[in-house]
């Protein structure tokens, strides 16, 4: 079940020694040891019944040469029947308990993997495609389950082989030895096959993953493709990858298509050999007909496990590789690490950036360099500046989404590295630049930060914005379904929902990153009135290109390439006649009634 099976190694992948891997897998089974033991016991019983049945039949056939009593024969038949029923019963217990153990283990592994993903900071999600992360948590764990099931199967096969070999040896050493010579031949074939199979399998899966990724992305961006009428181009792209995947799959067909016929033929030759050798011995009375029969039958029982070990080996390895990937995901450390877990009460909201240096990844230019900024509690600070200056980055740092490389960020005099992250973040209310909504209703989304909030509280928060008339435009008010990512709302409506979500959360510090950029001026003006009340007494950082939004701020800073190039209040900055003044005049020329930029 690969959605976009991520097979190319990710940066955080590592390889584990076999011992380590086995230890890790075993640890997951420890809580279920009684079931595992039961399953193992059943497996042994199954092997025994599977071996005894042909032995009894062969004894029966031996009896036929003499002049046997009917009762005796029927008794034998009855034993075979009972064994058949018992075998089924053992198998039932085996499968049922194995399913329970495997189900629980996979569940535990999935939960661990999910928790590990949740621990990661945002740099992880920037770097790794979401489809691949998803497939690690859901599909790779599934493959892990396959390993476990296969291991149990393989073990039971091995037990069977050993038991049968023992029985054969006790019956007739020479025939047994002839049978065993088949072993090495099969092993050699299996070894050659194993390498071919692994390569073919890996290539096939990579090709598959590429096709899936192509589909995933073009489907998500289908609207763009349609707007530009580029369906033809993306279809051609798709066809090429699809065809390539097909060709790679053909290679797999050749390898896997020939292995079973080959092994079957080898086993057929062995049967012929046993028939010939056993027949000769039977002619010379060196062996009974029953034994001879037993070996002919036993051969296939002997063979079956060996071929299945050989053929499932690649799947087994694939499963091991999958568990390696899951463990790598679980073991990888997040970049953002808290040095302590100090409890965070209600924050006063004093923020201090002290000589902070930050870049998203090494090799990229620093977004902030030696950056210092003090924000006293209760201040409304506005940040303006050129796009790409680092405004959003600043806010994301404060949210502790990313790790900074030097300096320190403090809140109420404590470094944010030392705080309990959940409690800390609950004190911050962020409206991100691109509003994200979860599928569900408007109310569900507003309630996201406070899941217990009742409908009245949700409505109050929503009505606080403007006069709440925006709710009237929604077909079912706050119960309107917003669609995936909120796609059924207009962009402005999405921003309003994101704002209401933060209002309901009632944070100590507000971070508004272009929170009203897609809202019309009239509604925005109404929203500003509401915000003015909310912002009073709380520290807040407001980022906006619409300068009308920031005029009322206590202090304005102008950011350029991660540096503060100006600061002061609106009046002061205007009189200073610097960058802000220039931005402001341009902005207000834009808002004035007789401005035509292309005419200057």
């Amino acid at each position, binding site marked *: 079940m*690969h*959605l976009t099976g991520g097979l190319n190694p990710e940066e955080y992948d590592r390889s584990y020694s076999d011992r380590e891997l086995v230890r890790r897998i075993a640890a997951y089974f420890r809580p279920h040891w009684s079931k595992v033991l039961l399953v193992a016991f059943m497996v042994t019983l199954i092997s025994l019944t599977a071996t005894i049945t042909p032995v009894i*039949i062969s004894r029966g056939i031996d009896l*036929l040469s003499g002049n046997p009593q009917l009762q005796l*024969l*029927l008794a034998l*038949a*009855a034993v*075979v029947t009972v064994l*058949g*029923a018992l075998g089924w019963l053992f198998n039932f*217990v085996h499968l049922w308990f194995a*399913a329970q153990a495997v189900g629980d283990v996979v*569940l535990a592994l*999935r939960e661990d993997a*999910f928790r590990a993903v*949740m621990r990661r900071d945002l740099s992880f999600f920037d*770097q790794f495609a*979401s489809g691949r992360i998803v497939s690690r948590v*859901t599909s790779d764990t599934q493959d892990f389950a396959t390993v476990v099931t296969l291991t149990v199967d393989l073990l039971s096969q091995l037990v069977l082989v050993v038991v049968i070999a023992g029985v054969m040896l006790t019956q007739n050493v020479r025939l047994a030895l002839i049978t065993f010579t088949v072993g090495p031949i099969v092993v050699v074939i299996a070894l050659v096959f194993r390498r071919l199979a692994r390569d073919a399998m890996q290539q096939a899966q990579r090709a598959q993953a590429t096709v899936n990724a192509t*589909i*995933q992305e073009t*489907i998500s*961006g289908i*609207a*763009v493709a*349609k*707007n*530009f009428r580029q369906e033809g181009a993306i279809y051609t792209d*798709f066809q090429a990858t699809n065809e390539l995947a*097909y060709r790679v*799959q053909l290679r797999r067909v050749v390898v*896997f298509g020939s292995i*079973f016929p*080959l092994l079957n033929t080898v086993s057929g*030759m062995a049967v012929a050999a046993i*028939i*010939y050798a056993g*027949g000769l011995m039977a*002619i010379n009375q060196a062996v009974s*007909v029953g034994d001879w*029969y037993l070996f002919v039958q036993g051969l296939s029982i002997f063979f079956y496990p060996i071929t299945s070990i050989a053929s499932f080996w690649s799947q087994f390895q694939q499963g091991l590789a999958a568990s390696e990937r899951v463990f790598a995901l679980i073991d990888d450390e997040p970049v953002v690490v808290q040095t302590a877990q100090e409890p965070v009460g209600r924050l006063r909201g004093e923020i201090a950036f002290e000589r902070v240096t930050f870049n998203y990844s090494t090799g990229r*230019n620093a977004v902030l360099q030696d950056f210092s900024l003090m924000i006293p509690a209760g201040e409304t600070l506005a940040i303006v500046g*050129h*796009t790409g200056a680092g405004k959003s980055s600043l806010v994301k740092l404060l949210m502790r989404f990313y790790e900074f490389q030097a300096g320190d960020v403090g809140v109420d005099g404590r470094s944010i590295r030392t705080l309990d992250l959940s409690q800390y973040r609950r004190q911050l209310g962020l409206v*991100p630049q691109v509003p*994200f909504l*979860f599928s569900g209703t408007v109310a569900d989304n507003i309630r996201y930060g406070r*899941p217990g909030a009742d409908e009245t509280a949700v409505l109050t928060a929503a009505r606080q914005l403007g006069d709440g008339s*925006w709710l009237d435009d929604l*077909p079912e008010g706050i119960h309107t379904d917003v669609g995936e990512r909120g796609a*059924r709302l*207009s*962009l402005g409506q999405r921003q309003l929902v994101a704002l209401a*979500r933060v209002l309901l959360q009632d944070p100590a510090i507000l971070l508004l990153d272009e929170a009203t950029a897609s*809202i*019309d001026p009239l509604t925005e003006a109404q929203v500003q009135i509401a915000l003015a009340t909310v912002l009073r007494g709380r520290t807040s950082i407001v980022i906006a290109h619409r300068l009308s939004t920031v005029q009322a701020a206590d202090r304005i800073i102008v950011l350029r390439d991660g540096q503060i190039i100006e600061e002061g209040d609106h009046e002061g900055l205007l009189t200073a006649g610097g960058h802000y003044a220039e931005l402001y005049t341009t902005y207000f020329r834009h*808002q004035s*009634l007789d*401005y035509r930029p292309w005419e200057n």
Partner: protein
Amino acid sequence: MTRREFSVADAYVYDHRSSLRWLQSHIQRYPLLLTTFLLTTLGMASSQSLSAVAVGNAFDTVLGGGDAAALTIAALYVVAAYLGYGLFDIVNSFAIRVLAQRVERNTRDELYLSLLSKSQTFHGRQRVGDLMARATNDVQQLGLFISPALGMTIESILTLIIPLVTIATLDVKLLVVPLLFLLGVTLALRQFNNNLRPIADQLRATFGQMNAGLAETISGIEVVKGFAQEPAEEDQFSHNARAYRNAFVREGEVTAKYLPLLLYGLAIGLAFGHALFLFQRGEISVGQVITYMALLGTLRTPLRFLLRTSSVIQQSMASAHRILEMILTETELDENSEGVAQPMVGDIVFERVHFGYGEEKDDAMALNNISFHARPGQTVAIVGQTGAGKSTLTKLLNRTFDTSSGRVLIDGVDVRDWSLDSLRAQIGTIEQDIFLFSRSIAENIAFGARTAVSQAQIEAAAQEAQAHDFIMGFPNGYETVIGERGVMLSGGQRQRLAIARAFLSDPRILVLDDSTSAIDSNTEDQIQRAMRRILQGRTTLLITHRLSQIRSADLILLMKNGRLLTHGTHDELMTHSLVYRQIFIPEERRLEIGD
């Protein structure tokens, strides 16, 4: 003939009347592979029975006092039977596997093509996760359906039946137990399938839920973390994963209770007793007993096969149904390749246009009775409050959606009579909610062009959009890969890439939906100048909240609640529309809103 927005000329036509027929038509596309497969399967089953007979003969030879020479011949028969089997087997397995791969490839192609040909209304309704599941898992499931499932099933059925024929040649009486057994197996299989079906559905549904939930959590990770809601998400995930676990265990239980294997165990004993009984009565030889038991022995493998294939076949039928359902979903738009295809002049007329996203009543429509006329080369500004229907209106122009009633005319021709190809190629849009692909910056910009473009053209477009400088600031320049949906860029950087992309498409009509909202005024000025030059003489639909742009528009549409309140030039609206004045002149806002 279904309607499509996009099609290719030489697409193979499959039978869509039912999922079974559809699968059948996919398989029958390759009659040679199919016949080869069927014939070799027959050959396999026959040579398998022959080998059992050969084994029995060998025993009879020895017991009948035959010599080494006779034994050699008997053994050679066994060799021949197995070699024959191997030969059939390899051809058989190639044929079915190649067929499976082709069907997989072709169904994926068919589905993908049909997804491309669906309207945006359709895509707006679908969850991407769900479409993906169909295009990947379900398609792969069809491959598994053919090989191994279908192959194994046909093989199993033949290997269940042909031994019976062989047994009949030994002694008809020997058929009693196998026939009873077969009857039992048939009934048990049906029962088994009935038990399995709901669980197989559940398994898929719960897996899908777990996957989709996780995907959404990850797309919204910034919000999850921002609100410290990781524990709630964890609960949600655990809940989903547990539902899957329960379905998994239930499947294990049903599979464990697979009755045919029990029947087999019992049948072997009974058959053995019956054979011994007949031997006692002198009706069959030891060799025949052995052949009989060997033939019964071959029945075990098909039973195991059927156990595995039953669930695969059921899941595959469900998958086929889901894929076909997608393919058959009616789409309201047609590409209309015969339609008008001519250079656009840019004259736009809306005539009493109504539009609704769902099946709302008239008063809840997203657009109500919109009429206006924009002349070629004019700039039309659309203003109105959030949710008024501005973006929606522009989406009717290039037929992202079709009107519910009324007409949209371009150059006097109803957009529905335009060839979709020609229509969309000449209308460029910068959407409000920008989507960028996780490819390189160069590829993203080039996406707008209909033909291959040079690096120089890409850079020129980026220059015009004021994007060149920041692009060159990245270590990899135009080759920088920008992450999913462009997460590695700032808001304004994303918008400028979208602008460059639209510039490169060289449209006759351009729709700018709030396309500079994340860009500072200075940069915007520069972009405006470039736009003015590039768009000289082209009709432009402009949604913006910047007064200067609105005021210089030739026509302004003022919208509210999906209605066109009024339209005219800035001066006209300033004099007669209070709502309009309220939007731009703060002092007017205290008055009651009404027009």
